[in-house]
């Protein structure tokens, strides 16, 4: 089947980047066909957080909502890293065979993409973290600076309804956050006293969750379950924000369950995208302009599967950066019940600058990790926090339930040549398209940063009164990525980058990328969604100008 070009632009991927790009183009008068490999989700019916077995549920899976990837073998763990080994007192060590566990990256296919599942932190990248090569001799510089991105950050924050504090230091703002910050939870305030004791600033995090009603959406009621999908629709996922706004223009058509499997190109232009259909047939859709926004794993997969399209530099799939994280849980003498409140409600930016960690290039940030610890329910607490069984176990569960505090940290993940996405040589999807294969290897600086993050987390917890550590997890031995970046780096040099400063292929004049694959560096632990939105809005503006 072949479909003529009834749109000005075809966008592949309806997540953080594709949704923002679609909106940005539609509001400027362009017509857009927005494709996604996954289904639609209905917040009212797909996120059953009112049911008694809520703690046994993760973000719901629907047909085609989970893509398949494969992993290259995990690294051998040749050293003892007591602070970084993942596991809990109740369950035991996560890794027992001395090999980094390559488990998963969090990716939702569907209208809204992974923002459906994300916590909803809304961060601007540290300005200095965009100049990692020229300032610090690592990674690559962004071909733009913070000032060029700032107006688009502001646009995105306005549409999403970001709630944040008056100031975030070096992240200067041309306008205040549209909504006031969320109040800190009781557990976050306990951690705040510890942060103060160790000299850390502890402030309200900027969040894509409504602190007041906004654009017809209700405010958050602090249920703590953002990662399971928000049935109230106060979380600023892309389906409820950019896509709604794009649809309101009357110039956006959405097609769920439409995986792109190949791109056709001729001379210096992309001409069509081949899309799989539910019946197994393939539709050829003519594409006057094509925007790829499938994320840092699927975008390079699609390019590589299209005979290496846009890979003139050899950089497609290279420079993969996954989430560098630590998470430490400890018991406080007094009950906290940290599942109450907005996840990640409080944050410390003190070590976020690339030169803030003594002796280690690349920054990090610390935050209240209760919401992302996957410990909200009684059963998980009983099994992870309290070892053993019998009456003594039961007594401990009864006396300590609700006493957990968590401090998490995310840090700069430097790219290296052993971390990449390529095509699996054998595994294919139902349309015969090779699956993406992820390889990840941590460098010395990454491990050093992880050590600092874990050590400081222990200090913060202890200063908060929670010195009985019962679990810790880290990406040192566990690939469990929420943020994946790089693989189609942007830059001014066609020989070392895939797209230019506006996200346009150096070689193909109507091929654009608007997702986290264009990041030349990861930032110092910032959540990437807001930066993806901003870059996509900037790309959309450029496409309209063309």
């Amino acid at each position, binding site marked *: 089947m072949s479909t003529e070009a009834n749109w000005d632009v075809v966008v592949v991927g309806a997540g953080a980047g594709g949704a923002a790009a679609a909106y940005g183009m539609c509001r400027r008068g362009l017509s857009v066909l927005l494709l996604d490999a996954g289904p639609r989700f209905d917040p009212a019916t797909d996120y059953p957080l009112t049911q008694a077995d809520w703690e046994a549920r993760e973000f719901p899976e629907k047909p085609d909502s989970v893509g398949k990837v494969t992993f290259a073998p995990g690294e051998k763990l040749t050293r003892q890293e007591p602070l970084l080994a993942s596991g809990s007192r109740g369950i035991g060590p996560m890794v027992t065979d001395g090999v980094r566990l390559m488990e998963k990256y969090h990716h939702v296919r569907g209208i809204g993409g992974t923002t459906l599942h994300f916590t909803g932190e809304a961060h601007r990248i540290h300005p200095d973290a965009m100049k990692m090569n020229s300032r610090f001799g690592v990674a690559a510089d962004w071909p733009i600076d913070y000032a060029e991105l700032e107006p688009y950050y502001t646009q995105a924050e306005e549409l999403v309804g970001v709630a944040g504090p008056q100031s975030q230091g070096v992240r200067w703002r041309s306008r205040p956050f549209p909504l006031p910050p969320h109040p800190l939870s*009781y557990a976050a305030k306990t951690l705040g006293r510890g942060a103060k004791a160790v000299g850390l600033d502890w402030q309200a995090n900027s969040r894509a969750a409504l602190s007041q009603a906004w654009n017809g959406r209700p405010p958050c009621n602090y249920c703590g379950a953002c990662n399971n999908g928000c049935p109230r629709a106060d979380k600023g996922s892309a389906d409820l924000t950019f896509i709604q706004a794009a649809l309101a223009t009357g110039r956006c058509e959405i097609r769920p369950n439409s995986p792109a499997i190949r791109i056709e190109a001729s001379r210096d232009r992309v001409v069509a995208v081949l899309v799989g259909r539910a019946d197994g047939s393939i539709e050829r859709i003519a594409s006057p302009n094509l925007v790829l926004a499938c994320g840092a794993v699927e975008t390079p997969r699609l390019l590589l599967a299209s005979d290496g399209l846009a890979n003139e530099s050899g950089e497609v799939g290279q420079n993969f950066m996954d989430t560098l994280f630590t998470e430490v849980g400890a018991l406080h003498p007094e009950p906290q019940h940290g599942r109450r409140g907005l996840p990640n409600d409080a944050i410390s930016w003190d070590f976020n600058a690339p030169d803030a960690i003594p002796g280690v290039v690349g920054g990090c940030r610390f935050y209240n990790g209760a919401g992302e610890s996957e410990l909200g329910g009684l059963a998980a607490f009983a099994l992870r926090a309290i070892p053993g069984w019998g009456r003594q176990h039961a007594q401990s569960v009864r006396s300590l339930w609700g006493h957990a505090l968590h401090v998490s940290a995310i840090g700069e993940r430097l790219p290296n040549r052993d971390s990449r996405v390529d095509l699996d040589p054998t595994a294919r999807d139902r349309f015969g398209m090779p699956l993406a294969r992820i390889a990840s290897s941590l460098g010395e600086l990454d491990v050093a940063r992880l050590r600092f993050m874990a050590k400081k987390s222990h200090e913060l917890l202890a200063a908060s009164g929670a010195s009985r550590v019962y679990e810790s997890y880290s990406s040192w031995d566990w690939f469990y990525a929420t943020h994946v970046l790089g693989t189609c780096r942007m830059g001014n040099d066609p020989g070392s980058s895939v797209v230019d400063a506006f996200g346009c292929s150096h070689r193909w004049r109507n091929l654009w990328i608007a997702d986290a694959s264009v990041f030349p560096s990861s930032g110092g632990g910032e959540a990437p969604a807001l930066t993806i939105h901003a870059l996509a809005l900037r790309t959309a503006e450029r496409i309209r100008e063309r």
Partner: protein
Amino acid sequence: MKRRNVLALLGALALGGTTLLRRAFAPFGQEAEAPAMAAVADTMFPGGDGLPAASALGLHDRVLAMSELKTTITTGIAWLDRYAASRGLAGFAALDEPGRLAALDAAFASNEQGIRSFVLALRLQLGLAYYSDPAVKKAFAYTGPPQPDGFADFQEPPA
């Protein structure tokens, strides 16, 4: 249930992970092992102080009905019964509570194939089911579903 709660078992057992509590289990018939399994369940999760014992909730039957655990359970129960027999008793269920706890500790410390993983698997499966049961959760604060009410008291000390 979240994946990090079960990862330690994956090397030893082919467990389903996140849907364990919701799956409809097909019984595979281990009636002979039911008394021992009930004893194991109640030793691990004995209740008291207003809480029910695990067997009173029927959790031993639920675990016995998990076909993927059949071999593990058969091997483990046989080991526990041999432990009891070596002390002159008819089987694990005939041990008193200290004796049962000692048997489970010995099984957990055992190097014999499948015995430690048997204890881990039962702790996980019984524990997940026990502490997810409404009759148990109602004895603990803040265990209800997140919605529709959220937590209006999130800034305050727990009630």
